């Protein structure tokens, strides 16, 4: 087994709550984690945390942005019903079927715990059981009198999942928000590994916001940082019965490196060759258009950015029991560190040569 430098940090990050547009609690944990590697940390208008680790290249050094979104999918209160029950809407993409019976945290004037209600089997007809309730029909029960609910909760308050992280067999971790805090752990592992390597390039580590509602933080971070190479780190799908073979990756078999129109061919080849050269396992992920990651926004920021996308596979994406392997996080960190160490000014100049 390889060294797990930041597994504790990951568990700490997973315990944080932060959906699109209210990432601050997670952001402060991220800043603390980044400060181990640099004191040059800023937060932009949207809330992206941007940390710079300099290489030895000086003023003309290549700049490589590594970005991982720190927001998790969330719900938002739309109505307080009679009895103090809360109706909610999506802020990110939950499958409402996974929400029934789920424990949640309501971020109101006080932090409240609640449960998403379900009708007991004794009271449900066979007909009802065949149907999945839409999100509009679900409600959160905070087990409080209506008056007290109204004094504490406002329309617009956010709701996140409550789930304690569990460690499973084979260095696998399960819980909420592995999408995409595992990728922040990858950035940290990269920075750790990079300390033992010589690198010309400056690394700009970004924990981005609002990915789950459409890569919004990525758009402004890319515009503001304007790096030579922008690499989005995000999770992808691990294999499950019934999934297409090209959308099923193995847990523990190394990160998935993306290839397709969204990816600069030289960035892809660089990542692939780095993995081959250093004996790091990886898997090939294909896309036929903009990926569903921050990389979609990076590629068309300003005059266009050379974009790469990489990440680990997890099972049960957007559930409260997302499961991934820490081994993959370590492999991905090593791969990115070696890739960054290989990049020179000449490589950057070549990115516009077709």
């Amino acid at each position, binding site marked *: 087994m390889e060294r797990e430098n930041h597994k504790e940090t990951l568990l700490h990050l997973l315990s944080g709550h932060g959906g*699109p*547009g*209210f990432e601050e609690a997670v952001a402060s944990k991220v800043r603390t984690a980044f400060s181990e590697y640099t004191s040059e940390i800023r937060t932009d*208008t949207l*809330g992206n945390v941007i940390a710079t680790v300099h290489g030895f290249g000086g003023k003309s050094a290549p700049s490589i942005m590594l970005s991982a979104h720190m927001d998790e999918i969330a719900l938002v209160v*739309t109505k*307080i019903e009679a009895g103090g029950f809360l109706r909610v809407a999506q802020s990110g993409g939950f499958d409402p079927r996974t929400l029934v019976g789920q424990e949640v945290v309501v971020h109101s004037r006080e932090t409240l715990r609640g449960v998403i209600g379900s009708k007991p089997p004794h009271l449900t007809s066979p007909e009802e059981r065949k149907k999945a309730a839409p999100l509009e029909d679900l409600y959160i029960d905070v087990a409080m009198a209506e008056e007290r609910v109204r004094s504490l909760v406002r329309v617009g308050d956010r709701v996140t999942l409550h789930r304690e992280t569990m460690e499973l067999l084979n260095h696998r971790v399960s819980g909420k928000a592995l999408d995409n805090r595992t990728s922040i752990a990858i950035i940290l592992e990269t920075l750790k590994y990079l300390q033992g390597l010589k690198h010309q390039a400056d690394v700009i580590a970004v924990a981005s916001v609002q990915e789950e509602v459409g890569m*919004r933080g990525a758009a*402004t971070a890319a515009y*503001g940082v304007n790096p030579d190479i922008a690499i989005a780190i995000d999770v992808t799908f691990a294999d499950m019965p019934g999934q297409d073979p090209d959308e099923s990756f193995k847990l523990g078999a190394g990160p998935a490196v993306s290839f397709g129109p969204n990816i600069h061919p030289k960035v892809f080849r660089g990542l692939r060759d780095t993995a081959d050269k250093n004996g790091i396992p990886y898997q090939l992920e294909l896309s036929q258009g903009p990926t569903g990651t921050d990389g979609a926004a990076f590629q068309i920021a300003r005059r266009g950015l050379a974009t790469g996308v990489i990440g680990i596979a997890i099972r049960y994406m957007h559930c409260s029991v997302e499961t991934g392997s820490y081994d993959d996080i370590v492999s991905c960190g090593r791969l990115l560190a070696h890739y960054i160490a290989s990049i020179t000014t000449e490589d950057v100049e070549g990115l516009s040569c077709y």
Partner: protein
Amino acid sequence: MKDLITQLAQAVAPSGSERQFQETLLSYVKDLADEVKIDRLGNGIARKHGDGPHIVLAAHADEQGVMVIDIDDHGFLRIIGIGEQTPSLLVGRSVRFTNDEIGVVGAEDDVKVQDLTLDHLYIDIGAATKEEAQKRVHIGLSGVVVEPVVSLTDHLLTGRALDNRVGCAIAIEAFREAAQKGLNVSVVFTAQNAVGARGAKTAAYQLEPDFAIVIDATPAGDTPEASRNDIQLGAGPAVKIMDSSTIVPIAVKDHLIESAERAGVQIQYEVWTKGRSDAGNIQLSVDGILVGGVSYPARYTGRTSTVVDLRDAKAALDLVLEAVRSFGQ
């Protein structure tokens, strides 16, 4: 404010055809502005240099409509939508084009209401032949459904385009007061909101404000069997929490809530998950712009006629003014 709103709601300004209306809008503010212009996409912009952070007030000037896309041999017009149109709502209505020609919308026989698309509709302008029609209209000509503004009560107005002529009126008055106080403020009457907030995108890029407040309508949920939504007409302006284009930063939301308290304005909270506003494109311009939204409740948004409460509009103005005055303090 009622007169101003009523006057503004007369204008026919479907997305992409705002220029003439922009002249009118700018005429209300240009005496106090250092610069006014209508930009390439049709935004009307007035800028007043002054003290403090640069604050932009944004209200879309356009409305949804229809566009002539074909003229048949018998002089009937075929149309496409400008923005999202519900075809069944157009049938039997009068349409006024930007050149003041009038027509009536008909539907092909034997099409069930639920199957109706814009392809089944046509506009009858009373022309007998294609040639006759071509003298009065052309392909690419835009129009809107005719629906005059009427007072339902002392406070309630109904009519076409109140969404967002109410917002334009609030923005005009807020800009005038702020400019007279010597503040650093711009007003943008944005173009092409109904087709995807296109004007807001290019306006934000050129103005790069420190803070932008978007003034727009939000649907009220206080009608019979309405979908779950806590917004009520007459219960005050809504501070935008989120819509499908934006999540307002917590700090901005708090600033607006505190401004409301200081101004003595009762507020509501807007979570409109299907709604699209100018806020998103402003927020994501350059490396990010602080954006907030003050919305007035409106019944039947997206339909041919909406209902608004003038007290909400007045309170929204008070809230915007206090938010502008106290920003950054």
